[in-house]
């Protein structure tokens, strides 16, 4: 049943809707296929990953924190394998694992105080907190009794075992704890999802600081983040936007028509550049705005192909390059560790299959994603405000647990 639903024009929207009705494994598989076909990409990936991990936490069977961590990282591993260039998957997995560790240690601290009564009193409320359907309500109904009794017995024992991260052995069968943990982790993931969905708006909030009246702003392949940023700035400022893209438009097709219309509506001049090289326009440009798919530990970013052309041209003329990126895209690995430097894409948009000569002969390489070295980036504009390269490590340390920093989802 579930598979027949998915087999028909699968989209992320449909998948997210069907999450509650179909088995966990089917959902994961469906998302993997969407990722493999690159039907989910860009900013949707983080959201989709968070949704999926929430399902993993809510639906899968686990008895202790270690099992949960293993399940989360295993699912993350599978998703990352499906889309090796999407570093964001790893980020969300790290965040969720960090969250689990936090909640687990908090729980135990609470236990240390011998506060089992409050623990008990919390329990009945948990089903209402987690509005997600699934096995949770059932468990909540059947287990509280045994859990609370067990808690009474094992208080002293947990107090003895300090929290040491992934390898921490949990007291066996602490299912009441586990249940509370489950709902807290679910809450936490929902917070991460909120953060992801609000990031664009928060970034756009800094638009009028960065963009000044009379500016010429070059937006290279504007992503939804960049579009929102520009529109927010347009509400306050009069400036000119150059929209550049490496894609070839079919005759009669107007590139970025919707964005141009909105900008024009706000009184901002938007010019689509039908050009691949951007050096010609750079003397006119005041700043370049691009969005990152991921920001690496060294400050380099993973982004759309062609951004390095734009950034290099900007550097030649000493124009600032502003990278828009939610903090959730900050990725605590080095670019050489994970993934590939270039991502290749469909070449049929450029070389027609009807063009037999070309199809037979040419080795067409259409690069769709690339790595932009840190020296080309001037400002990282995040939902926490503008950041410099030197400060990235601090932000990453704030958001990821040390234990998860080294997590690599790309090793076979």
């Amino acid at each position, binding site marked *: 049943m579930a598979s027949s639903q998915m087999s028909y024009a699968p989209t992320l929207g449909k998948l997210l809707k069907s999450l509650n009705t179909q088995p966990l494994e089917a959902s994961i598989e469906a998302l993997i296929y969407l990722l493999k076909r690159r039907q989910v990409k860009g900013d949707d990936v983080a959201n989709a990953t968070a949704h999926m991990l929430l399902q993993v936490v809510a639906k899968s069977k686990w008895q202790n924190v270690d099992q949960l961590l293993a399940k989360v990282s295993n699912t993350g591993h599978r998703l990352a394998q499906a889309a090796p260039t999407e570093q964001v998957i790893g980020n969300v997995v790290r965040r969720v694992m960090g969250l689990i560790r936090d909640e687990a240690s908090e729980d135990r601290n609470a236990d240390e105080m011998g506060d089992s009564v409050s623990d008990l009193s919390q329990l009945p409320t948990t089903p209402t907190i987690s509005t997600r359907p699934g096995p949770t309500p059932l468990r909540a109904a059947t287990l509280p009794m045994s859990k609370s009794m067990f808690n009474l017995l094992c208080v002293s024992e947990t107090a003895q075992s300090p929290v040491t991260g992934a390898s921490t052995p949990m007291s066996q069968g602490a299912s009441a704890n586990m249940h509370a943990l489950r709902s807290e982790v679910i809450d936490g993931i929902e917070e991460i999802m909120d953060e992801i969905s609000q990031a664009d708006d928060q970034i756009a909030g800094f638009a009028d600081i960065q963009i000044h009246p009379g500016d*010429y702003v070059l937006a290279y392949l504007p992503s939804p983040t960049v579009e929102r940023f520009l529109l927010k700035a347009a509400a306050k400022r009069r400036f*000119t936007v150059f929209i550049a893209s*490496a*894609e*070839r*438009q079919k005759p009669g097709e*107007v*590139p970025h028509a919707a964005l*141009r219309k909105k900008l*024009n509506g706000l009184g901002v*001049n*938007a*010019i*689509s*550049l*039908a*050009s*691949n*090289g*951007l*050096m*010609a*326009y*750079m*003397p*006119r440009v005041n700043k370049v705005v691009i969005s990152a798919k991921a920001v690496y530990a060294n400050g380099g970013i993973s982004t*759309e*192909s*062609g951004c*390095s*052309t734009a950034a*290099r*041209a900007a550097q*030649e003329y000493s124009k600032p390059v502003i990278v828009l990126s939610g903090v959730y895209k900050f990725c605590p690995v080095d670019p050489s560790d994970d993934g590939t*430097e*270039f991502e290749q894409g469909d*070449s049929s*948009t*450029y*070389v027609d299959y009807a063009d037999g*000569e*070309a199809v037979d*002969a*040419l*080795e*067409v*390489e*259409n*690069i*769709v994603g*690339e790595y932009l070295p840190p020296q080309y980036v001037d400002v990282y504009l995040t939902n926490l405000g503008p950041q410099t390269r030197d400060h990235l490590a601090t932000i990453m340390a704030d958001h990821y647990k040390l234990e998860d920093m080294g997590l690599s989802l790309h090793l076979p």
Partner: protein
Amino acid sequence: MAVENTGAPAGAPAPQEKGKQQAKSTVANTPATTGGDAAGEQKLTPAQLKAKAKAEKAARRAKAKEVKEVPPAAAVADAKGGKSGKGGKQEGSQSAGSQQQGKSVPGRRPSVNGRRPSVAIIKEDPRSSIPECFSHVAMAKRIQTSQAHKDVHPAVLAVGQQMATFALKDSIARLEATLLAFKKVIESYETPKGNSLSRHFVPHVLNPQIEYLTECRPMSFSMGNAIRFLKSQVNKFDIDTPEDEAKESLLEFIDIFINERITLAEVVISKNAAELIDEDGVVLTYGRHRLVEKTILRAKANGKSFAVSVIDDPYDQGGKELAKTLQQAGIRVFYSPNLGGVRAHLERASNVLLGTEAIFANGSLHAPAGTADVAMAASAANVKVVALCETINFDRERVSVDSLTYNEIDPERCSAESFRLMFDNTHSKYIAGVITEFESGTDFAPAQAILTLLRKREDPTIA
């Protein structure tokens, strides 16, 4: 005048509409306007009028590019719509619109009764859609042959049309066609009584041709150089030189010129550049340039084995043709359809060969848009960049430090909807060497030494 419009198919229907063209340049929103007229006839306060005019102006700008291409049916339908709706509101609101447009006011008024201005408007329109910040940049335009100066020679007319439509595109092709057309002009020239060729030919015959060609498309630097040589050649004639002798000498001069500066130059450059291609190396090039193509084919013919990376401009796709040609010659070709792949391709490239349109006095290249990005990426990747250029393309007077000083707008893409500059400016620091026909062997003339090179060319027998 009414039958003149056979030239441009797109413009053809418009003049028949007696200059409705202007009114109809708001083609897209005409239905909306007429619809709104009926409904909102009474409530058009001056402020509303102004807002409406503004909206129309915006729409007109957006649509201006399409104006040329309005299919006949649409134009006719429009004209009808315009006539029926003309009586009251629409006329009023539209003239308000054109008042704000300044320039088009004089064009519009007479257009109601006369057909002539419509032609002028067709010529004006494409430029009016150019975004303000690029309004200083030149653009080729199609001039209907009947609009040209009466002294323009038919051969030059044809060349002008071909240049305006980019059938003749690169600087050398244009130069050659121009010189051949000038030969025809010289052949058919007869000195009027009481005049001498050396005094009469240039101001009264040659200059109108040049003006016309410049109007069609700004002259390439090579054309400027050649014309200077040609004029100085004419000036050298003694006032008493017999006409036949002078003509003969001019024709011969042009033949030699084409032979030396174009035909032989190509052979020499490709020969020298072919030696730069490493055995088992990978040559990277951008777009399609005649000299680069010749060079690669020659290296192949010399028995070298190597591969070629072609980076293409997705808006031009000349590189694809080059890639296919090379492939047919048995060369392994990697093809990147856009500049996004340039860094990946540079990783395996051993050197970069670039064709250029011209070289400025400060050594920077004037080359198809995107060349600068490729050169910059290559020098960042420590790959040697070599530019190929005939000396006729060297400009000794002009200095360019950015791409907005001397450039051209693609007439097909000249509005905010889609805008394109045709050239860019590559700083000489990114160029490891320039190969010209005066270079012997594999010697390099670094771009900075170009002025020296030019001084070497400052040979009294030539200039």
